């Protein structure tokens, strides 16, 4: 692992010319555990800290600290928040997401009346709006309601809560705001480490959200009102609730309540409740370790596996990374739904003889589609590339397990130094203008 540190070497106020400096430094003792809050209740500020090995001085006015692995894959790109010399040849630096600085950016009170989410988020970031991209699913949604004078970070938290979105600021050099959705990534059984931990929390029996309506007018003495730009708005409140159908009748009452988030209104309150219910009504939390070469990040919905032949579907709240050649992460999954699993065996057949086999574990009812691999085998000095006659093994997992057979044919055979082309897909065009055999990647 190493970090790239970029700083301003010089700035000419007359010409506006900026000369950038920078360098790459090996690091050790990295602590990197990004989070996402799917409830939108808070906006976690992600950071990493590490020891930088160098005898150079690191300028304080550093702009960015980019965290890379040995393959030059970017893991995070945040500004430096703290630097301290810990020996003659090392510093400890802490790089923190831009969201930290938004906490110091004041914003005036505002009455939103149909403003798009994209424009409202850009306003929160001010001159640094270029740092953030808003997903197409939410950028044109509109906001309605009152926001008091608050920090840009608090304002952003409210906006994200109102529209059901979260910030992705890892594995990329900017921030991406995406909606909480049901797209599910699978963490394979064979990529999950032993001994996941399962915790059962107390049941949340009911969710309550307060929705606000603002009407311009002259308030009576008994009215609650706010004044924005000299205009008075009368506030009316409505509490909307949703009971947990999963909670047993004898579960002690435990109400999770969201109020004083004034961008919640009668139009978005039900969507907010539904989103929060996926999080709060499943009371199971799971902590599991898996191989994670940037496939799974905080905020993602994942399907994983735990002991006792169970699968778990939950949102990643936090991913704590450790690095070797590959990366391993401990994932904290919340709002987990536990499901029974069953084994799937895929047999690879050539002339009705088995030439390979793979075993999988899937939840019962899971619709699987597994890409059938090309098989490269050498027997008695004959090297053969077998290709599947169907691209994927597909089906729906049934209770008790199942077996799927896939037929193969020989594509290429190498014998005594001569390669025989026996069956190919055809010719595919390459971008260079050349052509390449279809079965060879």
């Amino acid at each position: 692992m190493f970090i790239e540190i970029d700083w301003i070497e010089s700035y000419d106020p007359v010409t506006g010319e900026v000369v950038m400096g920078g360098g790459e430094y090996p690091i050790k003792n990295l602590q990197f555990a990004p989070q996402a809050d799917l409830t939108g209740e808070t906006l976690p500020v992600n950071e990493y800290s590490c020891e930088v090995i160098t005898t150079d001085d690191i300028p304080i006015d550093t702009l960015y600290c980019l965290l890379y692995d040995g393959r030059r894959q970017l893991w995070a790109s945040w500004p430096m928040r703290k630097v301290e010399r810990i020996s003659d040849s090392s510093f400890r630096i802490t790089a923190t997401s831009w969201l930290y600085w938004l906490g110091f950016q004041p914003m005036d009170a505002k009455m939103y009346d149909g403003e798009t989410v994209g424009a409202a988020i850009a306003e929160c970031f001010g001159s640094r709006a270029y740092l953030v991209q808003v997903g197409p699913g939410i950028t044109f949604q509109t906001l309605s309601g009152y926001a008091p004078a608050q920090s840009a970070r608090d304002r952003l938290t409210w906006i994200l809560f109102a529209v059901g979105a979260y910030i992705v600021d890892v594995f990329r050099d900017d921030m991406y705001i995406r909606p909480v959705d049901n797209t599910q990534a699978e963490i394979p059984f064979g990529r999950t480490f032993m001994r996941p931990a399962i915790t059962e929390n107390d049941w949340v029996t009911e969710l309550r959200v307060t929705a606000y309506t603002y009407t311009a007018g002259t308030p009576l003495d008994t009215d609650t009102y706010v004044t924005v730009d000299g205009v008075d708005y009368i506030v009316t409140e409505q509490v909307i609730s949703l009971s947990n159908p999963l909670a047993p009748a004898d579960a002690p009452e435990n109400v999770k309540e969201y109020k004083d988030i004034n961008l919640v209104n009668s139009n978005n309150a039900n969507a907010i409740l539904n989103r929060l219910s996926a999080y709060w009504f499943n009371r199971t939390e799971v902590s599991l370790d898996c191989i994670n070469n940037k496939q799974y990040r905080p905020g993602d919905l994942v399907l994983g596996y735990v002991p006792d032949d169970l699968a778990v579907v939950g949102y990643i709240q936090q991913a704590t990374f450790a690095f070797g050649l590959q990366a391993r992460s401990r994932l904290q999954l919340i709002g987990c739904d536990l499901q029974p699993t069953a084994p799937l065996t895929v047999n690879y057949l050539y002339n009705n003889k088995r030439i390979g086999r793979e075993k999988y574990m899937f939840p019962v009812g899971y619709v699987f589609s597994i890409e059938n691999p090309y098989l490269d085998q050498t027997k008695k000095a004959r090297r053969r590339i077998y290709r599947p006659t169907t691209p994927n093994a597909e089906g729906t997992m049934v209770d008790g397990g199942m077996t799927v057979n896939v037929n193969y044919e020989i594509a290429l055979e190498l014998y005594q130094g001569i390669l025989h082309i026996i069956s190919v897909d055809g010719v595919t065009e390459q971008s260079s203008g050349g052509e390449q055999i279809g079965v060879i990647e």
Partner: protein
Amino acid sequence: MFTIDGVQYNVECSIERTAEIKLSDISGMLMDGHIFNDVLGTYYSYEVRLTMPLRNKGRYGNLIEQLTEPVEGHTFVLPYNNDALQLTGIVEAPEDVWKKLPSGYTYWDGLRFTINANGPTKALTLAEAISRGLTPLPDVYDPQIGDTYTFTVDGWEAASSYPDADTTAY
């Protein structure tokens, strides 16, 4: 014989070589019962023992001073199979014995030290670690079923080449 930072020591010595295939801390047992080995690479360490004391006291002093420099590593050239291996490594625990003969002649004897490589001599990239290490097959321009190709020192070659009008073989 070994070389330290470009200075060659042609001395009588024995050199013991140890290879360690290092795994990172993220290795461990997977749910399917397999062990995930995250291989960082093959690291060599060499233990060098001088089998005869150096007669040249000045040269011996230089060697000791070099070995005991408080630096992160030296560049060594050491025997490797039928060849030599250059590696950067740290010297650990150099030790020797001061001796005095009845004649009053004094000398240092029994110098030995260990060199631990700072980096792997052999390492896989992530792609290599994931793949199964098979040799690549040829890219073929316009393949036809029934064509054959032969692997030569220049790579894959169509078994049936034919000359063009200017006798260039294709």
